[in-house]
């Protein structure tokens, strides 16, 4: 699916060629006029969740818990929360009722892990709990189980403001994520910021470019026909600019997740969000 834009831009269009001089001049003027707007972070008041860029039909799907397909994963996660691996306690065995113990947790992840000296995301936190406390094999990235458990935990914080990145120990990693966000990469030589800071609200092929606030992960993408993590989303975007996607769980991926969450600080969590 992510190959579509290049294919469309690549096809020759005679009309575009004859007008190229005009558009070249117009683009130059636009760049000069708007220079101060480029590479600038979105001001706090202008920030909008991806929900705001969707059609009314997709918004309605997200808002109705009986129509939101992400809720299937939340239900699945609830069953897994109570399900004990062989010879170990279940998540509920230690943490009890997730509605109380997990409330607000997802809003502060990725969070600093003192044992590792760096931030870890919610999926990694769940897997650490599995390997260190439950002595069970960690769940692979993007498996039904890991996405379901993460969605269930994150759903407990729905509506709460994002607080990730406020810990002082985590500042250098927020900055590393910001550097990654602003770094041009791939064959298209694009940074995340060039689309999501500078050109949000405009269209890329048929789709609106949103502001890239990770407010609803794990989220249900209609394009994927499944629930997926923020890391999966970042990998698709990386692939879209023809760069080599980072491996699941790579420190840079987590830094980028952390920067995006910090960038969306104060915005309410929507897990499980629905996106086109």
């Amino acid at each position: 699916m992510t190959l579509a834009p290049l294919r469309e831009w690549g096809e020759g269009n005679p009309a575009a060629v004859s007008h190229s001089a005009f558009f070249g001049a117009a683009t130059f003027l636009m760049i000069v006029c708007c220079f101060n707007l480029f590479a600038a972070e979105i001001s706090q008041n202008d920030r909008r969740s991806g929900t705001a860029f969707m059609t009314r039909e997709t918004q309605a799907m997200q808002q109705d818990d009986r129509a939101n397909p992400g809720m299937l994963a939340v239900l699945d996660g609830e069953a897994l929360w109570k399900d004990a691996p062989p010879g170990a306690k279940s998540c509920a065995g230690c943490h009890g009722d997730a509605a109380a113990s997990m409330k607000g947790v997802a809003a502060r992840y990725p969070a600093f892990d003192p044992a590792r000296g760096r931030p870890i995301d919610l999926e990694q936190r769940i897997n650490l709990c599995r390997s260190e406390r439950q002595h069970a094999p960690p769940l692979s990235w993007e498996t039904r189980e890991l996405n379901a458990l993460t969605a269930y935990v994150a759903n407990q914080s729905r509506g709460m403001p994002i607080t990730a990145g406020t810990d002082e120990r985590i500042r250098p990693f927020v900055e590393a994520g910001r550097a990654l966000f602003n770094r041009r990469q791939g064959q298209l030589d694009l940074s995340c910021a060039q689309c999501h800071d500078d050109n949000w609200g405009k269209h890329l092929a048929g789709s609106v470019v949103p502001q890239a606030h990770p407010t609803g992960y794990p989220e249900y993408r209609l394009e994927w026909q499944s629930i997926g993590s923020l890391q999966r989303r970042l990998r698709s975007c990386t692939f879209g600019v023809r760069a080599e996607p980072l491996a699941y769980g790579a420190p840079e991926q987590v830094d980028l997740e952390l920067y995006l969450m910090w960038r969306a600080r104060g915005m309410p969590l929507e897990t499980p969000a629905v996106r086109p």
Partner: protein
Amino acid sequence: VTQALVNVPAKAKRGEAIEIKTLISHPMETGYRHDTNGAPIPRDIIHTFVARYNGEEVFRADLHPAIAANPFITFFTVATESGVIELTWTLDHGDPVTQTANITVE
């Protein structure tokens, strides 16, 4: 694990048209795809959905491979009397999935 979400109004007036919404988790594997080794992935879909109102069939749908994963099916029926609405999804593989909901008609 197959999860289903159904939305049936708990109360309705006699003769009123009520909307029933259903959502079920299922991959809806088409049977036309191949894995990374080139081997075909066998078809695995929900092929039939039936709704019964106090035992009487009020809605039926045949599903086909082009239908997206996690099918969302919604339909209207007339609230006739209090009782049970039973929804059944029949799968290519495995036992049918059934969910019931009670409705009170005044």
